[in-house]
């Protein structure tokens, strides 16, 4: 997980999300709907985005799990994380980890996704504060329409 091998013993019923958050203290993935409907718990399993709330932890045994913390840190952000900051694609930030992981997976598959690909890649993630303009700008990439050209990051 996030580049390290983790060994742990849990009950078979423990979800990947609960295992990450409660056992491994990896709290980037968030528990919001807990039913595979909102995307806040999105992580990468062998590079593919999945809902951690809808996977049992034992199903992920032997696989590679990358959470939002594994993509980058505040001091060394992944380019998608940096783009979320630069485009103000977050307010309260609770949906952000899931969106960041789903967006990173989408852009890794297709750096210039069309509307249908965006719908397929991010249609399963929801934000309540309303940060979609910023997220669209992240997906569109630097210099694209919708980007925040007037930026002045860091003051």
């Amino acid at each position: 997980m996030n580049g390290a091998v983790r060994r742990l013993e849990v009950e078979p019923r423990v979800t990947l999300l609960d295992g990450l958050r409660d056992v491994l203290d990896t709290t980037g993935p968030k528990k919001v709907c807990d039913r595979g409907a909102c995307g806040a718990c999105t992580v990468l399993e062998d590079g593919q985005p999945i809902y951690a709330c809808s996977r049992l932890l034992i199903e992920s045994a032997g696989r590679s799990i990358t959470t939002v913390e594994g993509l980058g840190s505040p001091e060394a952000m992944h380019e998608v994380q940096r783009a979320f900051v630069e485009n103000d694609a977050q307010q309260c930030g609770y949906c952000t980890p899931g969106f960041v992981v789903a967006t990173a997976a989408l852009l890794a598959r297709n750096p210039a996704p069309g509307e249908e690909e965006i719908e397929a890649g991010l249609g399963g993630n929801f934000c309540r504060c309303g940060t979609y303009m910023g997220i669209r700008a992240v997906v569109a990439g630097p210099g694209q329409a919708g980007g925040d050209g007037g930026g002045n990051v860091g003051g």
Partner: protein
Amino acid sequence: MADYSWPEADRRGQIGRRPARLDGPVKSTGFARYPSDQNPPGLLAAKILTCPHAHARVVRIDTSAAEAIPGVRVVHVIQGEGSEIQWAGDEVAAVAADTEDIARDALRALQVEYEVLPHFVTEKHRDRAPAAQPGSERTDGDPDAAFASAHRTVEQTLGMPQMAHMCLEPHGQVAAWDGDELEVHASTQAVSTLAGQFASELGIPATQVRIRTEYMGGGFGSKFSPDRWGIVGAELAREAGAPVKLFLDRDQEVSVAGSRPSAFARVRVAADEQGKLVAWDSDSWGSGGLPGASQTPLPYVFSRLPNRRLRHTSVPTNLAGSRAWRAPNHPQACFLTMASLDDLANELDLDPIEFLDRNLEFTGRADVYREELGIAAGMAEWKERWQPRKRSRDSALQRGLGVSIHTWGGRGHASNCDVTVHPDGAVEARLGSQDIGTGTRTIVAQVLAETFGLELPQVRVSLGDNRFPQSGPSGGSSTVGGVCASTRRAAQDALREVLTRVAPRLEADPEQLTAAGGRVFVEGEPSRSMSWTEAASRIGGAPVSAQGRNPGPGRLISSGVGGVQIAEVEVDMETGVVQVKRMIAVQDCGLIVNRRLAESQVYGGLIMGVGYALFEEWIPDPVTGRLLNADMEFYKLAGLLDVGSLEVHMMTGPGYDERGVIGLGEPPVISPGAAISNAVANAIGVRVPWLPLTPDRVLDALAGRGGIA
């Protein structure tokens, strides 16, 4: 007398710029620890058993089987035998256990016997309500005479149901005791006021309660109180002798932790031959669950309209009580009013913008609305593209434009701030406020940096802790005004003290000195200067600190904003599906501290507005009294591609900046329901009288079918 003010436009270093939010990197990397992310050693997980009935009496509770489960630490009965439960989802018992799964096992093992009582959950049928509370009628002028002599009158029943706050981080907290001292990591909008509420419920002095909220996952008006689950969580922790995490499950969050009251009304409104409003009559009702719902401000914005009659009936239901939802009562009043006025404009064969313009004298801020209407119309190319309501159904896809206007107060709340300048030049502000996602932390940092002539990395903002000087709850769009006033005043006082101490070194009077660009210099003689670091090093061995308080409206802050929104929609006449293609928002909010964050607030308001205009509603089941959609699959939020193209214009510069800072969180969420409904009416030729504009409601309206919601 100290002069507290903002710098003139040409001297601003930070105010009005677009720095990225300071907590962006920790949020986008998952490093930000929210209250629900706290995992102290020995943590127990707690869950709540709720009542499945909308109205019932608890006959018997047997906790023995639950208590016998290994790993269960405390079982706590919240509403015991004999208690009358008034809504489904109300808390009956709670369990703290070693893991969340074990706590759920225990909930399943709790045996509760209920006597089920009659319930009522569908307030749209006012005539069937068992406990409707009609209010007194209020009449101004002579509405009967005005209607009798009016040129055109429209009359219809409109309405919108209850909806959920749907905070992504559920309500809840991690509570931990150290002896008789309680520390609570709470997902709250009210860091400074929560301690007293916990203390009085728990029977300890407020000085022994610490509240921490570094980050929180959304509130929107629903997170001002510890709530019963907060008190229960603290009691479980005290009894277990271990920290307890208790956050609501999603079905509980949707059902009991925050809803907006519904609003229905029979509205009659009339105008004369010049298109001037002459009379208003509304017979309204609504519900916010068990407490019912109060009168919304009708007629909205056009509150000086002559000849008015208002009646309102509050309708209690067996649903959890509503909470303040972003701009309480305004979105409802806006929809009821602006839809009615739009229909009246149609009857008058007037362009709705022209009609609004002719009646702006009945609003409090005609000049602002007139300017904003002009700008919004220009952005939408309204003159070229708007057409009267279509009567033909020549195409399966019909487009339409709609407009709405709104208002809000936004006066700054009570706020205190400590600002400290350290001898190494570091500057810190501490205040018991909270950043609920609006960017408060960043705004305070900008005010600090502006005042001391520094850059953002050189200042530090500490908030989210009730040990810091008390600052009000984040409600009513009052935070930015409160914290800007308290921070600016404290910072200006601290700076004056620093300048007083270094003035002799520069052989100047303190009043001649300015701090800007990382230096302190004699005004007009930049060569007589020293770096900020050197200036700070000369304040002596101890830091300089100053306290600031928001004294209320003045040069730094004020209140009262207006906004205009235009929606463009496309309606599929065969399926009834409405798509928002474009939303335009023109908004004033006085002096803007951070343009980027201000725009984000408006975008966010538009997006939440598209949600309640098209998708969002509580759907209570009249048979069981429970919500049919207490989840995120059937309670629909707007998604990334559901909201069309959004364009924001902020009113700023001369005429606006002088008003000082005014809050912005609420105004932009008020108009979308009305603007989108009006655009749909424009597109399809008839009014869909209900929100949200779901396909069934659109098809019903197209087929001329009445009925209610």
